[in-house]
């Protein structure tokens, strides 16, 4: 019996990876086409965003703040938040937009979300590696002191972002009002995402509350991984893990509910 279900699990895994692969290629072609640099466009947007904001900060604040490079600091904050914001905006109304693909039974609605998020994730990672490599050459970006910690932070941040997408996607199908509140909410949460500061710069009482935010925990991990002993970081990796699990369970249940009532033309 257990062997039987293991074989089924393997089949299911095979089908799902195939479907997600096909969906990603399809998405890349529809979004970026085959002309000029093609799918490399996925890293252009995060690059531009982080690059321009970093330049603005560099001009207005000078080369260093709290002893670390302003450009590197801004980039380390902006690339993850672009991933989060793009992930969210791409997951709205994704089920109805791709409805015609549900004619093929092996495609599940979660595959739409996964394929889109993986594309955003790859785009951000590529942009990050690209810009960091260039800046390291010019000595404006630190060589990561603990690359493992940095990557764990980025991964936790991404997983939490994805778990939020799992909730937003079905909610946006249930009610159109949700869609109208999302841009404002993602904007408001920027200050609470750890983008502009380290927790060691804020008042200890405030810090305790801030540590409830999964984004801040992830961000502190990434920055500690980058700068190491140059900075003090406060984080608890269990925070993003637990929050992600809660959001994922809630989101998957909502997805299941929405799939049952989804009307497809």
């Amino acid at each position: 019996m257990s062997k039987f279900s293991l074989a089924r699990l393997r089949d299911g895994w095979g089908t799902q990876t195939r479907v997600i692969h096909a969906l990603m290629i399809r998405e890349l072609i529809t979004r970026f086409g085959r002309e000029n640099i093609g799918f490399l466009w996925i890293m252009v947007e995060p690059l531009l965003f982080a690059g321009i904001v970093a330049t603005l900060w560099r001009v207005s604040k000078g080369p260093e703040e709290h002893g670390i490079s302003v450009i590197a600091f801004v980039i380390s904050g902006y690339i993850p938040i672009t991933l989060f914001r793009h992930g969210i905006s791409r997951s709205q109304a994704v089920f109805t937009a791709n409805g015609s693909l549900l004619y093929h039974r092996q495609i599940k609605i979660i595959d739409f979300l996964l394929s889109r998020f993986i594309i955003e994730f790859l785009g951000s990672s590529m942009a990050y590696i690209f810009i960091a490599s260039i800046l390291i050459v010019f000595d404006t970006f630190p060589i990561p002191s603990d690359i493992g910690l940095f990557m764990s932070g980025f991964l936790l941040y991404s997983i939490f972002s994805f778990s939020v997408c799992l909730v937003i996607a079905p909610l946006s199908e249930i009610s159109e009002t949700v869609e109208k509140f999302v841009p404002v909410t993602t904007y408001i949460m920027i200050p609470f995402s750890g983008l502009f500061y380290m927790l060691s710069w804020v008042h200890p009482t405030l810090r305790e509350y801030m540590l409830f935010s999964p984004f801040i925990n992830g961000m502190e991990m990434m920055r500690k991984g980058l700068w190491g002993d140059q900075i003090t970081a406060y984080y608890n990796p269990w925070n993003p893990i637990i929050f992600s699990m809660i959001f994922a369970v809630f989101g998957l249940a909502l997805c299941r509910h929405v799939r049952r009532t989804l009307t497809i033309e």
Partner: protein
Amino acid sequence: MIICKDLCKSYKHGLKSKRVLDNVNFTVEPGDRIALLGRNGAGKSTLIKLIGGVEMPTSGKVIRNMTLSWPLGFAGGFQGSLTGYDNARFIARIYQRKYSDIRAFIEEFTELGNQLKMPVKTYSSGMRARLAFGLSLAIEFDCYLIDEVIMVGDQNFNRKCHHELLERRQSRSMILASHSTELIQQVCNRAILVHNGQATEYDDVNQAVHDYSNL
């Protein structure tokens, strides 16, 4: 075998709810060619979508013990902004077939030529039907779900469909929703008449067509 068990489907709009299908039961045996008859809005397409797993029943279930095509119709199954070839590649990937085989088959079957390099949204409904049929025939299913679409083609297409589907794949099953009583009498061996949410099974197609004409 495909078994529909106590299928119910309601659509909700705001506070209103409309029951489209109410307790539908039937079985499709291998080799069955079932006609779905019913007036516009009776629920034929809904039933096809439920059988094909495109939409989920409100209650009841569909048990599929043979491979079943996706519902072939005007909408669905394609991405309009992609070309015919891109869609073929996509289908080949998700159904785990060799793209070169599928490509060769649809080029021969659809006769769309260079149009296959154009986005599907620029196709006429006849051309879409050709592509949809071409792709699903290239993959080979035990049972085909066909929603109206067979009628939009020109004579050449009808002849091809007839040859591929009814002669070469005689042992396959088929569920065909259509208003063309002539076609149904010619092709089907059983019929289901959908009316007021109820589905009535007929072993005699002529009787079903007679009842349908008198609705």
